[in-house]
Every structure is written in C-alpha cells, then in structure tokens.
C-alpha cells in the first residue's frame, strides 16, 4: 500500500447508537473500508455534541444507554475516497460527512513490529 502526496480526508459524524444492519454503524464503516482496501480508518468517540437532529449526544456514565458522538476519520487518495462515498451515502442515514484536503507526510508500517 502506497500513499503519498495529496490525499483526501473524510470525516463522518454520527451517534454511537446508530446501526447498520444490526451492527454498530462505526464498525460497519470500518469493515467496509477494509473491504474496499482503504488506507486506514479510525473511530473516535466524543464526549458531547449535537448535529443535524439537534439532539444532544452525550455519554452517560451512570446509565447503560450512551449515545455519544462518533467521528470516523478516513484518509486515502481522492479516487479511493470517492469509491467509498456511495456506500457511506447509503449507510449513514443521519449524520455529516465532510471531506478535506491533506498532504501525506508519512504512511508506513513495519513487518512484524507488532506481536
């Protein structure tokens, strides 16, 4: 996998409780990215937020229901990102997808560096 120079970053914002075919949406997105051989994806959980629905997303420490805001950040070349977008369109019912330009400085891994 090679990634260098100009690339695109997608940020997908939605709620932790959002589902895609009975699976957490963030997991479904990461799996889809892997399936499409996207360079990488990272899921972040926010502590508070609101979005298109203007519902406050907040993680409740004391209750089991937590609908914290989730952000998935995906970086790859413009072509690869555009390959992903139709799937995201279908999967993300309620949320925000933003794209921005980034310059890749480094994208490396070491064989067997991890046990």
């Amino acid at each position, binding site marked *: 996998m090679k990634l260098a120079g100009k690339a695109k*970053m997608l940020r997908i914002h939605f709620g932790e409780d959002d589902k895609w075919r009975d699976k957490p949406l963030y997991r479904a997105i990461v799996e889809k990215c892997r399936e499409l051989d996207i360079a*990488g994806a990272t*899921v*972040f959980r926010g502590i508070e937020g609101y979005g298109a629905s203007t519902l406050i997303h907040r993680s409740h420490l004391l209750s089991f229901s937590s609908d914290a805001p989730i952000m998935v950040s995906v970086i790859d070349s413009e072509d690869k990102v555009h390959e992903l977008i139709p799937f995201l369109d279908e999967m993300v019912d309620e949320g925000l997808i933003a794209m921005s*330009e*980034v310059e890749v400085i480094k*994208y490396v891994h070491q064989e067997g*560096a*991890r046990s």
Partner: protein
Amino acid sequence: MMQAGPAKKVSIYVGQDHQYHGESVYAAVLEFLFYHKVSGASVTRGIAGFGADHHMHTDRILVLTENLPMKVEFIETPEKVEELLPKLHEMVGTGLIEIQDTTIVKPSETSKQAARQDSSPPLKSAGKAKLMRIFIGENDKWNGKQLYKALIECMRTNGIAGVTVYQGILGYGANRRIHKDSALHLSHDRPIMLSVVDNEERLRAFLLVLDDMVQQGLVVLSDVDVIKYTHNFHEQERRKEARQ
C-alpha cells in the same frame, strides 16, 4: 536588579550552630541580605569540614548533625558589597568571609519578567497555519516509552505551539491490523491521533525528528486558519498582583 557584567561573589563560611543574637548566624545573614534587597543568596550545608578552631565538623559520627559547615553565597555589585560588608563582619563572628571577582553572564529574572521578554509568541494569534495529524497505536513504543507521550515531550522541547491527543475506539491502518480496546484484556491497543497546530516552517522542521520516532503510522498535514491562540498567563499574574 543585576546586570550582566563584572560583579562580586561573597562566600561566608560559618558553623551551623554559630549564633548571632539568639539566632543561627546563617539564618541571620540570609535575613539581613533579604531585607537589604540583595538580588539573591543561597545557603548550602556541607557534610563535613573544619575551620580556624581545627575541630572536625561532620555528620559521620553518632553525635547527631554536630555543627555542620554552612556556606552563604550571594552575588552583587561591588558597591552593594562594600555597603553590606561592615555589618556582615560583625554578624559572622568567628566565621570566614571571602570575596571573589566574578562575571555575570546571564542575570536571573523573575518568571514574570521572563514571560514578558518572550515577545515572539510561537504562533501568531491569527492567520494561516498547518494542522498535522499523527495516527499511531497506543502500544507503539519509542525507547521503551509510549510513543504518544514521547511525541508530546518532544514537541514541547521543540517549541511546538500545542498538541492534543485523541484516543480512538476502533481503527486500522498501514499494517491492516485492527486496533481496538478489548474490555476483557488488560492490554489496550487503541488508535491514537495527535493533532498539532503550528506554522508550516516549525512543523516541517519537526518532521525530521518525527520521522525517526514514528516507525509505523500515518502523518498528514492540512491547512487551517488560526482564529485565536491565547493563554491567560499574564491575566493570572495581574490578578495575583492585585490580590496582594
């Protein structure tokens, strides 16, 4: 206020038990210097020594800390030293006073003044800047230390304007390996993202250091507009002064 240049260094050697008007000589001398606005003085306690009386002062024997040697040192302008000497002479009694010529290379300053001198803030309060994002794993190590912690320390020492570490809950990257937090395991290998904002030159310079530290991961740069970059250090200082 001391200036860089020639000055006098005064060293006063006394015993810890020596008294001046019911107080230890070193404490009395220190107080005298303090109230005569000497720019700074230090007291050090020796662990063994002997003086004019040729009596060994040491803490080695069972006698608990017996009259250990004390040294009071301060640096001042020659005029100030001349002014203080007669009184010191009287206070020190059997002790020894020594004066050396010295050169002040860099005068000490209060933290307040130092902060004010820092007239070139690392980042302009507004304008074009770069945002660098570094994606690594929580378990990544650098010289036996967690990589993200090492990176933060390294950025601080390199004068980078600021960095924030985010912990992800799921992800994968160049090595195709899923990073996640498994609740049942003690080992967490969550994805980590460091977000760094500074001007382009500084970040580009830091890349050389970064290159060595990040053995696997992703580093990307993007353009940002800085709207505000402040810290309220001066405000805090002002409030502190007002309270006093």
